[in-house]
């Protein structure tokens, strides 16, 4: 049984007051996520990622199509016991403290008062909220709210977690903490479905990804399958390179592009052939010193940009 099963899911909004037209926020999405996967749901803003998540949480109702979580149709109350959700830019009851909020949610899951308190306290430790937990949420910064958001998504030890832009609002330290958290969840066997437009996170965490553009699914599959990790060139960084040597290499076509980093220090883009060690040897012969030599591969970002460019925009008939 798949953790998430989505079939031809479509959501049309009507826009326009005088002549209402349907706006396809999501158009025929078919997708499945296996249990235990960390699945990256990628795409630019307006691609339909948040719409999909809202449909999965039954905050909105589909125009057509079907989705199920853990084998049961979306919205099933029993399934909600095993699910966690963090919306984009979360807002919580600002008159409650962080502690009270988590205890409230824990109680909604049926935890006793004591168990709720314990669970809340543990999670707050995990996400790095210390003494502020007794302060009313109205005084929390964006980053702290994001941490509270993650804590409330995990309050019931869910089997599957939906995160909408989990890294937003966090400083680099916070982002690293969340990355580690997601990896810990994966190790525990939790399925993680998260949407993001920050590709570096996806590259670091996901086993499979889907790329959305203009309301449609553009591509989906294992990361390694989608992005051909073939080398298309080399990046050579040298210091102490005399200008004459650089001109010579350029004229021979051994250097495609040169970026000056400082006096005699260059980042050079080398073609696939001749083999870079030959070009390097020549430069060393002229007095240069090696700083670094790295292969240049297609990244997820290249793939992403390609996909989005290739995807058909929503036609003018569709958009009001």
């Amino acid at each position: 049984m798949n953790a998430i099963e989505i079939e031809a899911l479509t959501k049309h909004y009507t826009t326009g007051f005088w002549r209402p037209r349907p706006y396809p926020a999501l158009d025929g999405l078919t997708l499945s996520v296996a249990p235990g996967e960390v699945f990256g749901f990628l795409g630019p803003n307006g691609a339909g990622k948040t719409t999909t998540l809202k449909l999965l949480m039954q905050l909105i109702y589909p125009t057509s199509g079907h989705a199920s979580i853990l084998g049961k149709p979306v919205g099933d109350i029993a399934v909600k016991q095993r699910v966690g959700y963090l919306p984009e830019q979360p807002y919580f009851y600002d008159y409650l403290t962080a502690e009270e909020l988590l205890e409230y949610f824990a109680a909604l899951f049926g935890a006793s008062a004591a168990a709720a308190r314990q669970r809340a306290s543990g999670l707050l430790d995990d996400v790095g909220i210390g003494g502020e937990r007794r302060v009313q949420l109205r005084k929390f910064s964006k980053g702290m709210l994001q941490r509270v958001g993650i804590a409330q998504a995990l309050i019931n030890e869910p089997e599957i977690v939906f995160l909408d832009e989990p890294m937003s609002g966090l400083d680099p330290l916070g982002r690293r903490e969340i990355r580690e958290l997601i990896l810990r969840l994966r190790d525990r066997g939790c399925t993680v479905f998260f949407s993001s437009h920050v590709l570096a996170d996806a590259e670091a965490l996901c086993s499979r990804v889907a790329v959305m553009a203009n309301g449609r699914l553009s591509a989906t599959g294992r990361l390694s399958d989608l992005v051909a990790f073939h080398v298309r060139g080399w990046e050579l960084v040298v210091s102490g390179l005399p200008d004459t040597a650089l001109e010579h290499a350029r004229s021979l076509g051994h250097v495609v592009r040169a970026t000056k980093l400082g006096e005699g220090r260059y980042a050079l883009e080398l073609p696939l052939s001749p083999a870079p060690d030959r070009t390097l040897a020549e430069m060393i012969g002229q007095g240069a010193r090696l700083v670094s030599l790295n292969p240049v591969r297609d990244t997820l970002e290249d793939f992403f940009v390609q996909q989005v460019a290739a995807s058909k925009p929503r036609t003018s008939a569709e958009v009001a």
Partner: protein
Amino acid sequence: MRTIRLVAVNVFKESVRDKILYNLVIFAVLMISTSYLIGQLTGGQDVKIIKDLGLASISIFGLLISVFIGIGLVWKEVEKRSIYTLLSKPIRRGEFVVGKYVGLVLTLVINVAVMTVAFYAVVGYMGWAAPENVRAAFPSPAADPAMLKAVALIMIELMLVTAIALFFSTFSTPFLSAMLTVGLWVIGHFNDDLRNLGSYVGSSTAVWLGKALYYVLPNFAAFDVKAQAVYGQPVPMGYVGLTALYGLTYVAFVLVGAVTIFSRRDFK
């Protein structure tokens, strides 16, 4: 059930931490006390005036709470998006709406209770402090327990206004909800005139319309037994019972409507 209770307790917590509530209660208590001073200036009629003012204050302040908090009950959560996280937990949309309602009613009950106690304290004192001959002339005792019937019906009236405000709050902005709720309350008070619309306005459409609206729109005038309470006129328990039953049935009707609307909507 459990979820309804949890949501209700949260609403109560919010209204307690929202300082508006304190101000209203203090103001109402102050109002009742100052009416005591007014009473001093109008010799003889003071107990009647204070009873009038006291019951009216309980009604008006309760109404303010019902409307001003009621119109935001659901709307605020949708607008601020706190509804997103809440509905991802194992709680049905209907339980959420009912929980909100119960929470506000709980707040109202406490408020009305506090105001009633203050009210009885004031009239009780006035009755005790009045000279014997003046006291003998009262149409009914100063701290007349029969006035509780008026308070009970005021409570039911508030429950109905709250339900209506909550209903509008499930799909409409606060300003519009306030106008509609207050509008219905005002029309509901002129219920008798609706019934007699035919004799004011000539056309037969008016007669039919007046009668139809008379049966359908909430009859708030029936909850108003303040005049009877003040004059010591008997209000039979049968009257209180029927009117209370009417009020509660209407509350159920409105709540079912609110739950139905709320269950079907998209949260953009």
